[in-house]
């Protein structure tokens, strides 16, 4: 989590605030932490090394100012280098500038999500660009693969190439392009069988298909959970085919997704799309600045801040933030915070943007517990005296009993609340060290009760 890397880096620089440049020793120590974070996020080792050397170069240039935590500065550098390495700001669209029917070739390892993604792209081109799309499965390997694509085509409301048993992939490819021309399709999506990068026969086959169809896009579909093997896959497919774009699937999982960085670094091809679910409409554009935070374990900070801005009562939030910064945030303020969170309504979607919070999000959506939990906590705080709210430490056994009775909850509930508040206070102390900028970065994650950040908390 952001917490980990950020607090580790702050730890590294603690007490080292001095004017001038960061010392090489400080940087080396910080970079060890960054390296570890990247490895734990499954960035491939050679790519990690390259990345670290870029960060080192940038970090040695930095002037450390008295007022700013050096740890935060290094975080910023790491983040900037990451965004750049992932492709810079903004998304890269599919390239459809070729003579119709425009072929799109889908390739990748077994089970990476090619067929599902083919269906998703078809739907997107139909809906957003009013294209006439033909889906064709060249997968003669996996049982019922052609049927799978046919069913997806039906769901998407696009055509699929009639299945003829016994045809080879290259024959199907030819037939798909002929059909595309004859029946005047705008786009023909060619879904292929999964293949291992070391399977020479199958790599030759897909090369032949590429030669035959001359696709405008050759998209490598990669699972976001991929580990170190990302390098081998990226290299093999790129060498054989010349990848024009990458699709990262299963971004709805909780993998940190370091493979995105590996893929991009090895192929040089942009990551164009991401899969965010099993449903046919779960396809999104790739935003480097958002995924950077995810790989670093910082959460989708941009998205979070945007979302929060839509919902939060600015003035109230600022007041509370000021209190946090001053270290004067008490249970009464927390009660106000709870009210705001409740007002946001879509709390679950905000929670979901933080790393490791996917489960909390689901729990909130499914069980509808957000309101009840928050209401419960609100009730408990209402049952406290002002003195208790200001100084929760004085709440011992007998007071707990009274508060529980007054709010219709149990002593355990009270304990839980106090524990959460304690966690929050710890967080706030950290934030105070980060200063205003740090607060912006932490966004709402900081004010979320800690228990929400854990898996299946309820």
């Amino acid at each position: 989590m952001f917490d980990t890397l950020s607090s580790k880096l702050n730890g590294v620089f603690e007490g080292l605030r001095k004017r001038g440049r960061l010392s090489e020793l400080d940087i080396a120590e910080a970079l060890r932490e960054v390296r570890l974070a990247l490895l734990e996020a499954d960035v491939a080792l050679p790519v990690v090394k390259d990345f670290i050397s870029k960060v080192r170069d940038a970090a040695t240039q930095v002037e450390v100012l008295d007022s700013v935590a050096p740890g935060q500065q290094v975080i910023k550098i790491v983040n900037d280098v990451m965004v750049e390495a992932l492709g810079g700001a903004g998304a890269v669209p599919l390239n459809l500038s070729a003579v119709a029917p425009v072929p799109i070739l889908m390739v990748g390892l077994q089970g990476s999500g090619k067929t599902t993604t083919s269906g998703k792209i078809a739907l997107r081109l139909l809906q957003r660009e009013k294209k006439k799309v033909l889906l064709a499965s060249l997968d003669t390997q996996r049982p019922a693969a052609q049927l799978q694509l046919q069913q997806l085509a039906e769901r998407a409301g696009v055509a699929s190439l009639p299945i003829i048993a016994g045809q080879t992939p290259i024959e199907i490819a030819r037939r798909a392009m002929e059909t595309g021309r004859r029946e005047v399709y705008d786009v023909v999506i060619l879904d292929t069988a999964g293949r291992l990068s070391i399977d020479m026969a199958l790599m030759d086959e897909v090369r032949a298909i590429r030669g035959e169809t001359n696709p405008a896009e050759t998209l490598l579909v990669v699972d976001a959970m991929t580990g170190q093997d990302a390098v081998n896959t990226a290299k093999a497919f790129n060498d054989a085919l010349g990848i024009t774009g990458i699709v990262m699937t299963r971004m709805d999982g909780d993998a940190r997704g370091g493979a995105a960085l590996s893929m991009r670094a090895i192929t040089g091809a942009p990551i164009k799309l991401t899969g965010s679910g099993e449903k046919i409409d779960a396809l999104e554009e790739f935003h480097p600045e958002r995924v950077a935070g995810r790989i670093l374990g910082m959460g989708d900070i941009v998205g979070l801040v945007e979302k929060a801005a839509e919902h939060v009562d600015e003035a109230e939030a600022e007041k509370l933030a000021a209190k946090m910064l001053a270290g004067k945030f008490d249970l009464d303020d927390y009660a106000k915070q709870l009210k705001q969170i409740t007002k946001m309504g879509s709390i679950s979607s905000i929670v979901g943007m933080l790393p490791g919070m996917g489960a909390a999000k689901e729990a909130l959506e499914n069980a509808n517990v957000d309101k009840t939990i928050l209401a419960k906590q609100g009730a408990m705080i209402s049952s406290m005296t002002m003195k208790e709210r200001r100084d929760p430490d004085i709440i011992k056994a007998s007071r707990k009993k009274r508060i529980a009775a007054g709010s219709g909850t149990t002593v355990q509930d009270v304990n839980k609340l106090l524990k959460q508040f304690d966690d929050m206070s710890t967080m706030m102390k950290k934030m105070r060290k980060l200063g205003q900028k740090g607060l912006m970065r932490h966004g709402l994650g900081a004010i979320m009760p800690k228990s929400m950040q854990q898996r299946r908390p309820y």
Partner: protein
Amino acid sequence: MALGGFFNKLKAGLTRSTEKLTSGITAAFVKRTLDDAALEELEELLLGADLGPAAASDIVENFRKSRFGRSVTDQEIKDALAEEIAKILEPVAKPLIINRSLKPHVILVVGVNGNGKTTTIGKLALQYREEGLRPVLVAGDTFRAAAVEQLQVWGDRTGAPVISGPPNSDAAGLAFDAMTKARADGADVLLIDTAGRLHNKSALMEELAKIIRVMRKQDPTAPHSVLLVLDATTGHNALEQVRVFKEMVDVTGLIVTKLDGSARGGIVVALAEDYGLPVHAVGVGEQAGDLRPFAAMDFARGLVGNVGQSQ
């Protein structure tokens, strides 16, 4: 199955997947002093095989304690490293034993999307048929397009009957009915396929827990095995997958697939250390015959690239 032929096939699968690591180690350690730089290279080789920073540094630290400063040959380092890893894997290398008196022994197969569940069921079905057992397959993935038809093909290939329901029907109800049917028909093994699901989707995980609850109404001891399938290409997320699936559905063992590729599946080492769940078998291809028992030393040798040298 002749043991020799079997090992050769396993080796063939593992050799390819480890060539890079092998050459790396060879380059790093031919008659060389085991100094800091050498140890660092060793650690990097392990990292490249997906062992993860924690497991990799544990192993390297052990090496530092026992062998620092020694002059070692390529072969010695490989042997020692394989042994070190095998020591970790040995306790989890346990075959899945079918209890023939259960009739049927119910096996629930679970895991994230696309990692090889359905294919593994096909492979297991073949294995049980060859052992003279009567497996029955249940098309419990009622969600994904053509998932039922996919399993049906595996049933046809292996001669195992397939029980299925209509699309989008309730998987728990299907599993319940299948148990009744399998019992009446005298089946030995009931292999239940499930839709792939990400472990962070609590609604989907709950659905899996429900399948188990419903089955237990009929047989409180069912399912007798819950197999979590893991893709060898997976990195650190495998740790989280195992943690959550274990918590939600009491996983009894693992099967690691796609070891015939360039991925080395080193995360299994970290898994063995963290969870100690049995690893029953490995998948080394897309065909029905491509399932192998998980053997600690073979796997370890595969990881360090000593395959074929001391067998």
